[in-house]
């Protein structure tokens, strides 16, 4: 069954989509609004601004890849073409492995479709601690509803795959809160390859929703184009300087593109948006740029089940537990959300930290393995300030991220709870993703073993797929980069509309938080631009 990739027909029908790797001469592009990045924030903003009749230009450094390219359901191809740094991005010291997308659709092209509204506790914390206005549960409800409707968000209707069922069964046994995850899919084939790009267009990523809708509304998309710097004049953004990339989307081709617009929107995602501003020497009178970059540090626990799990097949995430999320409120001991990852073979092979015969033995059990993950809620207390984005001499981004005792304790607690959960669901043996870990055959042994783990960088397997913050919004310019509507405090014609706006982490997978908040901010901006 051939899947319509949307873009072939769209481009034939007049969509303005250009591949900057084919540019042979320098050029100037003009628009009402130029948007840097085509992910969750950029896609949502583009649709709303173009619907308002504004001429929108979307600039994306990654390639345009569609369902047609995703039919192989292959990890190697996906990591190389759809992820930042070939999926090899990490914090500056290498201790935290970072997964982030880099293609038309941004990270939504490779994400796992879990769709949660921003927890009310988080919104309250933003209002009281960070002076964020007009972002209460009630303020945001209509915007979430609008995006949920557009993206087909609904609790997953099919039975969870066996990997997710471990989480459900364990939580049910222990009488922990658990719930079915709402997913942004339409006609999902339940394949499990969301992370390598959905081959059926079922995932309602930006690639198949807001970006095509923007193009229908006359927006223009230029991919293989990296925005290098903003230029300023008289306290305003006067233009963008961009470099066309070669077809492999790595090195610049030598062609330079200048972009002029009335208004500019940065949607390059956390890490890249603050880095772009730092590289441009944007005004930052209070040194806030790049601060409070949160990552939802993830630790994992692997279980061998008596039954076949085949955790690489089926909707990757369909069950979650918030049992330990708000136990002590937003600012008590570190809370975490429990989920499972899809058991993609190459990704899993790097989690054991073993080599030779031991490695061979560990990975050989893949069909019976379950993994649980805990997303820690960082950025809510002083001991967890998040990381800091900085740039090197050439302007390339680096993320410094340190882990305080507060986070290490949260992780150790997560290891304990995950082991309990997995044994309650019938696991034969359990081990942590940690260099000190060994298999434990029962919950008591596992709990004792977890106490012995040295909770330090590198020994602890640390991952992040949720990059947030770095251009925090807030009421006070002394402690934030944009106002509560995403407008840059010092640059009147500049908005930040992506995950880097968050003043803390979310405490749930962030995509719907970005869609809702950006829909609200972009609608307000569209109104202002229509007037002016």
């Amino acid at each position, binding site marked *: *069954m*051939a*899947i319509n990739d949307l873009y072939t027909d769209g481009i034939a029908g007049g969509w303005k989509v250009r591949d900057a790797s084919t540019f042979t001469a320098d050029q100037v592009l003009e628009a009402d609004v130029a948007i840097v990045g085509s992910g969750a924030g950029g896609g949502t903003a583009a649709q709303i601004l173009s619907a308002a009749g504004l001429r929108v230009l979307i600039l994306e450094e990654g390639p345009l890849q569609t369902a047609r390219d995703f*039919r*192989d*359901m*292959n*990890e*190697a191809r996906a*990591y*190389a073409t759809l992820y*930042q*740094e*070939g999926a*090899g*991005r*990490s914090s*500056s*010291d*290498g*201790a935290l492995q970072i997964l982030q997308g880099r293609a038309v659709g941004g990270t939504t092209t490779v994400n796992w479709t879990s769709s949660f509204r921003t927890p009310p506790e988080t919104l309250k914390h933003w209002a009281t601690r960070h002076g964020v206005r007009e972002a209460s549960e009630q303020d945001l409800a209509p915007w979430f509803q609008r995006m949920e409707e557009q993206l087909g968000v609904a609790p997953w209707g099919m039975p969870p795959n066996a990997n997710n069922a471990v989480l459900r069964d364990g939580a049910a046994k222990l009488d922990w809160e658990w719930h079915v995850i709402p997913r942004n899919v339409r006609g999902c*084939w339940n*394949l*499990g*390859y969301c992370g390598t790009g959905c*081959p*059926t267009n079922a995932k309602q990523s930006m690639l198949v929703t807001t970006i095509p809708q923007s193009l229908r509304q006359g927006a223009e998309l230029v991919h293989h184009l990296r925005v290098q710097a903003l230029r300023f004049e008289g306290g305003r953004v006067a233009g963008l300087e961009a470099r066309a990339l070669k077809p492999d989307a*790595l090195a610049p081709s030598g062609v330079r593109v200048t972009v002029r617009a009335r208004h500019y929107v940065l949607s390059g995602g956390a890490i890249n948006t603050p880095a772009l501003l730092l590289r441009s020497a944007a005004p930052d009178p209070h040194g806030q740029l790049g601060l409070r970059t949160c990552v939802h540090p993830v630790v994992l626990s692997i279980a061998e089940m008596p039954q076949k799990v085949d955790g*690489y*097949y089926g909707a990757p995430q369909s069950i979650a537990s918030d049992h330990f999320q708000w136990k002590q409120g937003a600012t008590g001991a570190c809370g975490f959300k429990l989920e499972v990852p899809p058991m993609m*073979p*190459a990704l*899993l*092979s*790097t989690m054991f*930290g073993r*080599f*030779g*015969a031991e*490695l*061979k033995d560990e*990975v*050989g*059990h*893949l*069909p019976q393995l379950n993994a649980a993950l805990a997303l820690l809620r960082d950025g809510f207390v002083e001991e967890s300030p998040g990381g800091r984005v900085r740039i*090197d001499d*050439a302007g*390339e*981004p*680096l993320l410094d991220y340190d882990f305080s005792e507060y986070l290490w304790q949260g992780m150790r607690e997560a290891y304990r709870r995950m082991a309990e959960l997995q044994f309650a669901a019938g696991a034969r043996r359990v081990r942590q993703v940690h*260099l000190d870990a060994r298999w434990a055959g029962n919950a008591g042994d596992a709990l004792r073993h977890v106490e012995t783990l040295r909770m*330090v*960088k*590198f*020994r602890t397997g640390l991952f992040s797929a949720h990059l947030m913050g770095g251009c925090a919004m807030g009421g006070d310019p002394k402690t934030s980069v944009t106002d509560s509507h995403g407008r840059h405090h010092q640059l009147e014609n500049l908005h930040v509309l992506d995950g880097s706006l968050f003043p803390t982490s979310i405490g749930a997978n962030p995509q719907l938080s970005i869609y809702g908040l950006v829909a609200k901010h972009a609608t307000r901006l569209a109104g202002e631009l229509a007037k002016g």
Partner: protein
Amino acid sequence: MPESSAPLSRRSLLKLGLAAGTVLTVSSLGAGLAGCSRRDHAAAAGLRRLRDADVELFRALLPVMLAGSLPAAAPLDGHLARIDDAVLRLGAPAQREVFKLFDLLHLRPARWLATGIAEPWREATPQQVAAFLERWRDSRVGLFNAGYLAFNKLCCTAHYTQPEGWAQMGYPGPLAWAYESLNR
């Protein structure tokens, strides 16, 4: 703590830092004097980032990291190409770190201090390489753990993204019915 990591005390790490610093200065000086630094940094034939010396290093590491999973005397060219591609895609800051690590292991005194292997990589025995990997993995020094993990990840992804690796893991590949339906 296994015995083998004992020499890697804080003191030996200090020594290692000093040695590495000295050796790096000397070698960059040497390269400057000879005016041929480009040559040393050129990628190996058919590759875009890994240099001949890096290839030699991975030819020693791969058979040990993936012992039991690689056929004896496997050519390794595919693995090397995938490692090369992974390094190529890293951002400039991460590439700098990776090459610092490789460079350290190419300089005899530093290599000897850090890994216990004085011989060039092509002469290192699998037992020596295994001892070095274990030592770095189990070390109390985070930097060595980091180096071990970097090698582990590069070697694992070079292997387990491939059908041979999948078969060893018991991964049957994408769902056959869907694959056929989508690729008809």
